[in-house]
């Protein structure tokens, strides 16, 4: 790799990420089209089944991360200016937060609705439709629609998005793919609910609705928590928000290997797609200066496309909150 001239608030992505970015944009557009058809199809059979209604609203909510991703993308690409010296990377986190809160609020609302229906023992009505002169129980159509529409998220776009997300270090994309992969729970639950009504177990519909809405609440909580963490400048985490970002170890290793360095510490925060790195260095010799600093920041910037906004600073003591090598 050639020595990178590192840039502050960098906006242009390297070739691999640019290619990787074209894919999810296509996938998101495909998903929006597919989901729109799903929503229309389910609307024709939704009837007064609470589980079908909940699944239907979940389909609508599943459009949120995709829209957020597509809306945030042009902002993220903007160059930093004097007014916005850190660039616009946070747009992705803001979108992530909006999507998370929306899921949480609607999910709670649906959960309460389902629980109240169960407590009041509301028996769901599923009658029949006249399909080309034949009377067909609407429940069969509900089951058929739910089986057909699960194909997309389960086998096509869900796995594809979850595959691309790590390359791009994009949490919105990961959350979206993750939710799509889990979408079959919803379809399976609503099928169980409808068939339960079919055999006369009216409460299975409400129970399925409750199960689905708790799934939405769970997604909402997880995403809100992850987005808030990033906005609150928590330590950078990997794309699935499960572990510390591997870059933390990498940066520490690089600094440690420099001959003029006595002690080091690092703070890394997640700006959405790229990382903001602040490295603290206690030099061995008192004459360490701009040349060493430049070499250190370029060595760090060289390791990953994500680390382009790197600040290395000399100090006589490492701040307590910075990650130190001995914690390795």
């Amino acid at each position: 790799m050639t020595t990178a001239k590192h840039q502050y608030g960098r906006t242009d992505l390297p070739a691999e990420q640019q290619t990787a970015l074209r894919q999810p944009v296509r996938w998101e557009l495909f998903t929006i089209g597919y989901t729109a058809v799903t929503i229309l199809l389910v609307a024709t059979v939704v009837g007064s089944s609470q589980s079908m209604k909940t699944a239907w609203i979940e389909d609508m909510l599943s459009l949120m991360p995709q829209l957020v991703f597509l809306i945030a993308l042009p902002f993220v690409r903007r160059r930093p200016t004097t007014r916005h010296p850190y660039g616009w990377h946070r747009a992705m986190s803001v979108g992530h937060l909006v999507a998370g809160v929306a899921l949480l609020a609607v999910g709670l609302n649906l959960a309460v609705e389902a629980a109240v229906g169960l407590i009041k023992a509301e028996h769901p009505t599923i009658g029949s439709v006249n399909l080309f002169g034949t009377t067909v129980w609407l429940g069969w159509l509900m089951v058929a629609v739910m089986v057909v529409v699960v194909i997309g998220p389960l086998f096509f776009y869900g796995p594809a998005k979850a595959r691309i997300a790590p390359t791009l270090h994009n949490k919105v994309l990961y959350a979206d793919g993750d939710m799509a992969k889990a979408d079959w729970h919803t379809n399976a639950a609503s099928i169980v609910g409808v068939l339960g009504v079919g055999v006369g177990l009216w409460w299975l519909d409400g129970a399925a609705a409750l199960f689905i809405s708790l799934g939405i609440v769970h997604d909402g909580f997880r995403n809100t928590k992850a987005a808030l963490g990033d906005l609150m400048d928590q330590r950078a985490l990997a794309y699935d928000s499960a572990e510390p970002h591997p870059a933390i170890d990498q940066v520490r290793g690089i600094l440690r290997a420099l001959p003029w360095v006595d002690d080091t510490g690092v703070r890394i925060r997640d700006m959405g797609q790229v990382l903001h790195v602040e490295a603290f260095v206690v030099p061995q010799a008192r004459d360490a200066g701009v040349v060493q600093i430049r070499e250190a920041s370029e060595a760090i910037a060289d390791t990953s496309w994500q680390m382009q906004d790197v600040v290395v600073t000399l100090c006589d003591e490492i701040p307590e909150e910075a990650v130190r090598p001995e914690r390795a």
Partner: protein
Amino acid sequence: MRRAGAAVVLAGVLALAGCGAGIPADPDGTLSRAAGGELRVGYAVEPGLVDAPGEGDPSGPVVDVVREYAASIDADIAWTAASEESLVTDLEEGAIDVAIGGFTDQTPWSDRASVTRGFFPGAERSGPKSAILVPLGENALLTSIETHLDGEGLT
């Protein structure tokens, strides 16, 4: 694991489809009780649809539809007259099985009773569609009535 889950659901669907004759079922078994026995019908007077000529049983196009339906499930009818609101309460309390009157398929009572698809009881096939009310969630009875209406070409 995901495939296995899908397979279980699919197997369940097929198993239920195999015994499809019993679906949908009534949680409270209204249809199976009425068939071959007694269908308790509540009616509210609506001129031109449900008329009550002084003494005796009601008459009118909607009444005829219910009579034909009752005959199709081999049931005798026990008539009760009341206002629409009382009929809905009777449905909720299980005092009657079916309510007729001036109900249309846009009836505001749909929160408290299950409503059949709309139908034209008489020869005139325009204006608001009539509907029959059954107890909430008695889907076998509901579907049975709708199947009868479809069969008579009234929908």
